[in-house]
């Protein structure tokens, strides 16, 4: 128990310190890097809670993907060296943050942590350590997959390719749609016809614009 307490407080120092840094540091890029530290510390919390799968998701998605998007957004922004100047939205932002904090604290205080109802306790199990390879029959029943409980342990993978195979494949279609949509939004627009006729130099600036123009047909 002592070991876990030490790790918990270390993680808390890292998480709260980094979160304060995200808000207080004026250099946006360093703030983004500190945000990654917050994400990793939260992943550590998941490990402490026996939710290994969530920890992996946290590190892969948040510390990996989300932070890459944020850092790219920072690096692609003009005048970013101005940092994080105070602006007119400061007071509304404080009010919104206070409301969010109040809501979170209310939920945290209101939840009966030690006496979760039976059903909810089982749905918690789905994200815990063993869920990747072994899920108890009760949880399976609750997830509506009672038939899957074979002699060997049933894991998330068995559910993914068993009962939930259609949603599983639908996820890949959703990801495909997100990918194509994002690429279509981000792709540079082809230069307007009159602009291309007037200035040949600007066309040579990016051959990609010409290539994109031919595909738009």
């Amino acid at each position, binding site marked *: 128990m*002592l070991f876990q307490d030490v790790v918990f407080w270390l993680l808390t120092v890292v998480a709260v310190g980094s979160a304060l840094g995200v808000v207080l540091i004026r250099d946006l890029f360093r703030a983004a890097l500190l945000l990654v530290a917050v994400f990793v510390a939260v992943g550590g919390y998941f490990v402490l809670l026996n939710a290994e799968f969530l920890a992996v998701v946290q590190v*892969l998605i948040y510390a990996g993907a989300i932070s890459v998007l944020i850092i790219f957004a920072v690096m*692609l922004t003009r005048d970013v060296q101005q940092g994080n100047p105070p602006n007119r939205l400061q007071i509304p932002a404080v009010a919104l943050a206070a409301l969010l904090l109040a809501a979170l604290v209310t939920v945290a205080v209101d939840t009966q942590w030690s006496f979760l109802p039976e059903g909810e306790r089982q749905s918690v199990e789905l994200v815990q350590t063993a869920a990747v390879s072994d899920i108890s029959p009760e949880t399976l029943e609750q997830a509506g997959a009672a038939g899957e409980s074979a002699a060997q342990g049933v894991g998330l*993978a068995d559910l993914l390719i068993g009962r939930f195979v259609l949603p599983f494949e639908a996820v890949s279609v959703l990801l495909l749609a*997100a990918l194509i949509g994002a690429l279509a939004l981000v792709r540079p627009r082809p230069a307007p016809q009159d602009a291309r006729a007037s200035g040949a130099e600007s066309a040579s600036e990016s051959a990609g614009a010409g290539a994109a123009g031919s595909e738009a047909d």
Partner: protein
Amino acid sequence: MFLDDYFRQYGLVAIFCVVAVAVPVSMMLMSWGMSRVGLRPRAPSAVKAETYECGMEAIGGKWNLFNFRYYMFAILFVIFDVEVIFLYPWATKFLSLELFALIEMAVFVGILLIGWAYAWRKRDLEWG
């Protein structure tokens, strides 16, 4: 409950974190300590203060605007990163799963490869 098996396997992660923090910190501390004792010479010059970049002279300031096309690669990375999440439970159970699981995952990856082929076809992966 002290150090059960679950947390014991994360001992390696803890050791890794401690070493990762200790090495750079101890390096800086040693450098600082050497200068205190007088072992480290102190002779700053303009050349030493320059940004080192592969032996090339660094041009421009700290911030220059990055090419927007990098964002394409970021998006591709994010999508396939999410895909890895679905590969992970499948991979842990791979040996006990049947052929159907392999086919299902092939379909899953195949659908996402359409997106990759689309990006390739639309020349999003090329530098204009």
